């Protein structure tokens, strides 16, 4: 397995990426975001992303983030961490999140903040394991915020 930065040239692999499961609508919403939005965002430069590839070159996981440097201090929004259905519980999500944190730290960010579906227990657990504070979001009953920092 290798992790490398994704570009718009990875559009084909992103369009086929599958992380959805029947009982997890949030995973399918993320899958649609990866398939339909991410390549264009990478092309426009608004989003950074990394992919986890297996030895055959197949895309097995995706992380996407945005560095916020409009006003100090620099912060990072973690938008996506997703792995294919068959690759769950192998530590790939953690590897991708750690890669995101490393990129954020290299970019001068003091924290990585994510908005996570409240039923996405695996992602909340991963954030907690990496030291995140998890909070309710006022007026948003579907999601929680996870903040990892200071980095």
């Amino acid at each position, binding site marked *: 397995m290798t992790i490398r930065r994704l570009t718009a040239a990875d559009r084909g692999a992103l369009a*086929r*990426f*599958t992380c*959805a*499961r*029947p*009982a997890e*609508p*949030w995973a*399918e*919403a*993320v899958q*649609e*975001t990866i398939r339909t*939005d*991410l390549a264009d*965002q990478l092309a426009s430069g*608004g*989003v950074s992303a990394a992919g986890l590839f297996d030895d055959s070159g197949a895309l097995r996981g995706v992380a*996407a983030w*945005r*560095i*916020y440097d*409009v006003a100090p*201090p620099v*912060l990072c*929004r973690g*938008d996506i961490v997703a792995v*294919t*259905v*068959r690759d769950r519980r192998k530590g790939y999500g953690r590897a991708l999140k750690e890669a995101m944190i490393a990129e954020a730290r290299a970019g001068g960010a*003091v*924290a990585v*903040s994510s*908005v996570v*579906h409240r039923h996405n227990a695996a992602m909340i657990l991963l954030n907690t394991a990496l030291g995140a*504070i998890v*909070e309710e*979001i*006022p007026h948003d009953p*579907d*999601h929680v*915020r996870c*903040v990892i*920092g*200071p980095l």
Partner: protein
Amino acid sequence: MSCYAHGTTGSDGGSTRRLSRPVDDGQFDVIDYVVGGYGRYTGRRELVRETHLEDPWRDVSESEDSFAAANPEITHESLRAWFSQDDEYLAHRSAVTALRERRDVYGFEGPAMPDDLREATLRIVSERTPS
């Protein structure tokens, strides 16, 4: 794979056989769906009873054609029609659509750090920074 009123066969026409080639992510997703929806049933009784209540089987087994053919085929179209109107599937699609309307969470729209997220982040970082 082909489906018939009295069972399924692989593409080579055989009956039960071990899958010996890797499946792609889409195929894996279908298997995951089937196991999630039907894996709890025992094969001989519960699974037969459950699937025989569903339209694809009933349509071929109760049609006039079923008397002409010993084992009429259940078409892919009837299976597609049945599962596309499945209540759980429709509820799932509705939930996905509602989430995707949150383009700030599922679409990269709006600022990377909306005011409330930025303020919460700065508060948490401040509280956890040693003085």
